[in-house]
């Protein structure tokens, strides 16, 4: 069984946010509720201030604290290493959101992040929390794995595009979007990334490209001191470091 993981090359990432958009389209995200976000921040002050950015999907941790705290088992880790939410079991207690060090989880019922509120514009008549005009085919929707348009009052997060990845032929070391045979199994953000800054593959296979890149270019993990052991690795090089703090503007 594979252990799926992602490598993001910060030397190549241009901060274009195509990943964010592709994820939003693929997974029918509410505008503003970005499972895959690119965080922009400034470091330093005039005259040497720098604009920085940092792409951040769910880290699909090896030791996911979100799963450890979930009182119902709604958050779980699949055998191939993907952390998912079962929307039929989630009680909306939000403990997982509080316990995720990377802030990647979203609760359905909140003040809209952009106006007008798309949930009102495209109101749903069934249990779905909204009914967007663009959406994945119903057959792909899978609430047990947190895939699709979520119901009311549950928590959602990046699934590593589980509806795609889980269909990949067993034993595939890397899901390379350049390979037409594998493209449809590759996460949408990886497919779309224009400079090819994202790689996706099997971390348990030492021959996979992701494993070799992590080894060769000394991949690092975000907030590694917390012990969650992300399965998303960042290659830094000339792309700067991963942020080691969460609050950038300390004094606000």
């Amino acid at each position, binding site marked *: 069984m594979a252990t799926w993981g992602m490598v993001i090359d910060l030397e190549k990432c241009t901060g274009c946010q195509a990943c964010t958009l592709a994820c939003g389209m693929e997974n029918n995200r509410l505008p503003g509720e970005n499972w895959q976000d690119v965080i922009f921040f400034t470091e330093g002050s005039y005259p040497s201030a720098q604009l920085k950015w940092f792409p951040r999907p769910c880290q699909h941790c090896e030791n996911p604290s979100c799963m*450890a705290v979930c009182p*119902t*088992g709604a958050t779980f880790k699949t055998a191939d290493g993907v952390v998912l939410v079962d929307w039929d079991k989630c*009680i*909306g*207690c939000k403990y997982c959101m509080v316990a995720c060090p990377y802030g990647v989880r979203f609760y359905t*019922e909140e003040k809209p992040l952009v106006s007008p509120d798309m949930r009102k514009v495209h109101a749903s008549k069934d249990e779905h929390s909204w009914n967007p005009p663009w959406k994945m085919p119903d057959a792909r929707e899978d609430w047990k794995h947190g895939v699709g348009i979520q119901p009311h009052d549950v928590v959602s997060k990046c699934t590593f595009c589980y509806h795609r990845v889980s269909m990949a032929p067993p034993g595939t070391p890397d899901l390379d979007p350049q390979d037409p045979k594998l493209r449809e199994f590759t996460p949408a953000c990886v497919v779309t990334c224009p400079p090819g800054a994202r790689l996706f593959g099997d971390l348990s296979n030492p021959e996979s490209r992701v494993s070799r890149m992590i080894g060769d270019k000394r991949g690092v993990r975000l907030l590694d001191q*917390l012990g969650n052991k992300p399965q998303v690795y960042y290659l830094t090089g000339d792309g700067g470091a991963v942020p080691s703090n969460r609050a950038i503007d300390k*004094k606000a």
Partner: protein
Amino acid sequence: MNFIYPKTPGEAIAGTFRMFGENHVTANLWKLSVAVLAASLAYVFYMLSSEGHAAFNTSSDGVNWGSAIATYVFFALTSSGLTFIASLSTVFGFKQFYPVAKRCIWLAIVTLIAGFAVLALELGHPFRMLWAMPLGMQIRSAMFWMGVFYSIDLVLLFIKFYLLWREDWDSSLSRFVGASSFVAVVLASGMLGLVFGSLAMRPMWFGSATSLFFIISGALSGAAAIVVSVYLAYGFDTRNMPAPLRALKLSDQLPKVFATLIGIVLLFLLTRIWVGLWSNQDGMEGFVALLRAPWFHLEVWVCLALPFLMMLSPSMQVKPRWQVLASVLVLLGMFIERLQFIVAGQNVPMFKGTWMNAVTPYTPSLTEWALVAVGISSALALYALGDRLFNLSDAPKEQAGY
């Protein structure tokens, strides 16, 4: 109050309705709190059905748990504290505390119910919880164990209250239930502390001290709640009280316990803020925000330090009016404490996106305040009901003073 207490369920129901027409402190409290409860609950239901939980100001971008969770924690810990105070006589043999034991247990029941009610209105799927938590058996989750222990606690409280209602104060069964309930409540409040304390990624909460703090500050809010409610039951006039209760109220024992608890809580707060301001660790920035919040100063100076001095002063500590004032302030202080503890702990966002890289703001919405009102009014209404129906001043015959 010298009520004629109902003996059958039918009489009790009739008595409940009759209270709307009666005129004494308990009945007035009942009428007022039922009115507030009806209004606030109606508003909360209206908002939840029209807006859903989007009527709350909590947000994925920062403060996920807001005033509703704080209210739940406030009530759950007050309930635990009341059970501790009841245990003084029922478990540890300090007989002078017998006159408040039954009232403590009833109050522990109603505060816990109020807390659960608020929690249920906060949860996305409260009914799903009823099967998903027992079936999930997530033994790694502190929240799972908190649910287990608080449920056991509630059942034991009901049994103990039933036994006291049957005037079974000291049988081996009664003592066993009392002792088990003490153990359950230590575990429950401690586990509630661990819900926050076990999260290394939230440094403002992290550590076993959180559990200890929850247990001790719970005892403090329980003590404050029982002082206020006893005076309330006797129309704030010690002359109406049975002799042993009056003796307890007018001695310096209760104030001493009270002052000690306030002192320990102040010490906890002081050391916490000291570490928080001194430390450069990522995630501690919330302490700076705390120091700038007027609420926090209200809590520390007015609601804790002032009552602490009042309860140390020999001339003030035994005077009912100062005891009541101190207790009301402490209860307010403990509510603020729960709110600021929970909110400040989440003030540092976790890679939340472009516009959320500072300390995140949060003020409860009107719906959330209404939910706080639901909690307070339901606790008061149920308390008044118990006072009218169950003779909460009862004590073992040699203690009862009549």
